Structure formats: structure tokens, C-alpha cells
């Protein structure tokens, strides 16, 4: 049971529907950038996206090949473990259903890896069924490097560290291997609605 903080009234945002903010989150209209290392800058001609470990073996798309795949443009809310939430963000992205189906994904766990050495782990079932994407554009513009461009994962139903920036591939695995932040004490799954910020939540 938490007692009230003397003299704290808070600054509620009447325009924000509280039902859209997970517990402990606050609304922002900014787009903060938080990263553990420098922003990688891979030339687009050297860039590719790979899914390995599926029944179809290793499948790789160049940037040009990705451009031939169908994209969707949609609006979602995103929630960062550092407590900001940004509502109604618009993305143009390729559904991971398309990529994972091509790779004939079967195993239960996925590790996403990125330029710069970042990894994050997500159960396969969270990446299929129209709930996860490879995002190429934000608000109608190509994704800027500091926001993860040229391409990042977008898994809006989990805390945003799972939406790996500068993503270069997915590895399908039979075991669940904690990724970068998961290994530094953040929650293994990261559901904002259950406030799974840190290990043990």
C-alpha cells in the first residue's frame, strides 16, 4: 500500500484517455532516444535482413528485395520502460508474418540481432498473428538512424526495448536466450500492461 506524497498533485493530461496508458507510464509527444551505444550507420548497399534457423534454412533479403514486399501503414501506441508512452504513432512496415512464413519458422523462441551487437529475445508467438513488424518508415518518412533506421522491429504490445533498432535479423531457437537488456536485469518478457519492467516483476 502506497501512501500519498505530501503536496503532490500531479499533472494529469485531460486529453489523454487513461485507459490507453499502462500502469506507471506518462504521456509524451516527444520521441526520446535511448540507446546503449553509438548509432550504427551501415551503408544501405551493404545492408540485409536475415532470418535463420527456420525449416527453409537461412533466408536473406537485401534492402532492394525488402522493397518488393507488401507494407502496411497503421497507427499504434508505444510504451518505453523508461516510462514514457507515445500515442498514435504511425508506421509503415512489413508484417513479420510475411518474413517468418517465408523462413518457415517453427521454433518457439526468437532472438533479434542488430548492428552494434544489440540483441533482444521474444517468443515466436508474439511475432506472428499481425502483432509485430519490420518498420521502414515513421510518420511517412524513412526511419532516421537515431530511431533505428534503416529498419527496426516494431512490437508495440511489449515495452519498446523489444522493438530492436537497427535490426539485421532474427534467429529462431528452441531455447529462450536473454538478450542485451534482459541480461542486465530487465524483464524477460516485458508486458507494459502487467508492468513487467525489471526481472522479478
Amino acid at each position: 500500500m502506497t501512501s500519498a506524497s505530501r503536496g503532490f498533485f500531479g499533472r494529469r493530461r485531460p486529453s489523454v484517455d487513461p485507459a490507453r496508458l499502462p500502469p506507471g507510464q506518462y504521456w509524451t509527444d516527444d520521441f526520446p532516444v535511448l540507446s546503449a551505444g553509438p548509432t550504427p550507420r551501415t551503408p544501405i548497399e551493404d545492408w540485409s535482413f536475415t532470418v535463420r534457423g527456420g525449416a527453409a534454412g537461412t533466408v536473406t533479403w537485401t534492402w532492394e528485395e525488402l522493397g518488393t514486399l507488401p507494407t502496411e501503414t497503421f497507427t499504434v501506441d508505444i510504451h518505453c520502460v523508461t516510462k514514457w508512452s507515445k500515442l498514435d504513432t504511425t508506421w509503415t512496415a512489413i508484417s513479420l508474418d510475411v518474413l517468418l512464413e517465408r523462413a518457415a519458422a517453427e521454433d518457439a523462441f526468437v532472438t533479434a540481432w542488430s548492428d552494434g551487437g544489440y540483441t533482444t529475445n521474444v517468443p515466436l508467438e508474439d511475432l506472428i498473428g499481425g502483432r509485430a513488424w519490420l518498420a521502414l518508415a515513421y510518420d511517412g518518412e524513412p526511419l532516421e538512424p537515431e530511431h533505428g533506421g534503416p529498419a527496426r522491429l516494431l512490437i508495440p504490445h511489449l515495452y519498446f526495448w523489444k522493438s530492436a533498432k537497427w535490426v539485421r535479423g532474427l534467429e529462431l531457437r528452441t531455447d529462450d536466450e536473454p538478450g542485451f537488456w534482459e541480461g542486465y536485469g530487465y524483464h524477460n518478457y516485458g508486458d507494459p500492461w502487467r508492468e513487467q519492467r525489471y526481472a522479478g516483476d
Partner: protein
Amino acid sequence: MLDVPTWEGHLAGQHVDVRLTAEDGYQAQRSYSIASAPQDRSVTLTVDRLDDGEVSPYLVDVLQPGDALELRGPIGRYFVWEESLGGPLALIAGGSGVVPFRSMLRHHAAIGSAVPVRLLYSARSLPEVIFHEELVRLGAREAVDVRVALSRAWPDDWNGHRGRIDREYLREAAWPASSGPLVYVCGPTSFVEAVADALIDLGHDTDRIRTERFGATGSGLPAPSASQGGT
């Protein structure tokens, strides 16, 4: 300064979550870097008051000695320094990004470490330099070199760097890339981006650069590490 009876200790560079609760149950929480060393007796947070903030003005203007504060932590095991990580160490701060480095330098002093450290700290003007006297004192230690750079205004007799921490200054003042330093960069996003890019340009190893960014609106002080691939 907080008295936390159940505190189990922290690592230099970690942060805490602070949660405020209004009478009607409304809550707001933010993350703040710990400014004290693991060896210090109390836990110190240094809070940069953001005019349009929700939590920082409360902590700076309303909170008084004796008030209770709900904390969670310590959090974050990445943007930390322990002696086993070695060095040489370059700590590069923009504005209130210096807070976790104050913890690291106090820790370094408390354990009598001989690991060479250089702190490059960029502030807009002299009055905005946090912990100035203490940093000068810490910088008087054999292994420690503290350099304050003033980017907008400086006294006539200022003998530190005048101007931004840019590539040229990093070339001259940070450890050379060839010495393989472990580099920590903390500050506003634009500062961290510029410094990290310049370091890579100068040949520093990406894997030896750890960054912590905070946005203008964001989370108050050195925000918790979200993710290299995340937000």
C-alpha cells in the same frame, strides 16, 4: 540526500525509479541517476528541474527534509563502472549527464583505484557546472583528470576549453583510440550522438563506448538505459 534503511547497495552509475502518489491515487514515476558512491552513507539523487516537468519540480521545489519518498532500485547494470572493468576510463558528460560520473569518481576515490580516468564535462556556463568544487578536488588525485568545457559563456580568465566538446577537442583531450579506453557518454541525445559519432570517427571501438541519453522532455535526469535497440 535520502536515508534508505533497506538499501542493499548499488554500483556506480546506476539509477533509481522515484514514484509519487497523489491523494486520489494518481501516480507518476521517473528515473534519476544516483550521484553518490556505493561507499557513501546515504543515497543522493541530483535532480535537474525541468520547467515543464511533472516530477522534477516537485522534487526540487516541494519535497522537504523529512518527507518520505517511494524509491525502487538500484536499476541498470550496464552503464556502471567497477574496478574490474579497468580502463583507461573516459567519462564524457553533457549537462546533468555528469551525475552518474560523480558517483563513479567518488567510487574510484573511495577504493583508491589507480585506473586512469579522464572526465570531460560540457556545461553551458560556469554557474551551470554541477559539483564543480568537488570535481576539481576529485581531479587533484593522481589518476584522475577533470576537464570542464564551457560551451556558451565563460569568464575572461577561463583556462578550460571554450566551446563544444567536438571531434577536435576529443582528439586532443580524450584518450587516444590506440590506448583502448573504456568510454562512457551521458547527456542529452544530441550531445551523445555527436560525441559517439566523433569517437567512432577517431577510431574508437564501438564495443568500448557505453552511452546513456536523455531527451528534452523525457525522464528528467540521465534516463535509465532503455535500449540500444529499443526506444
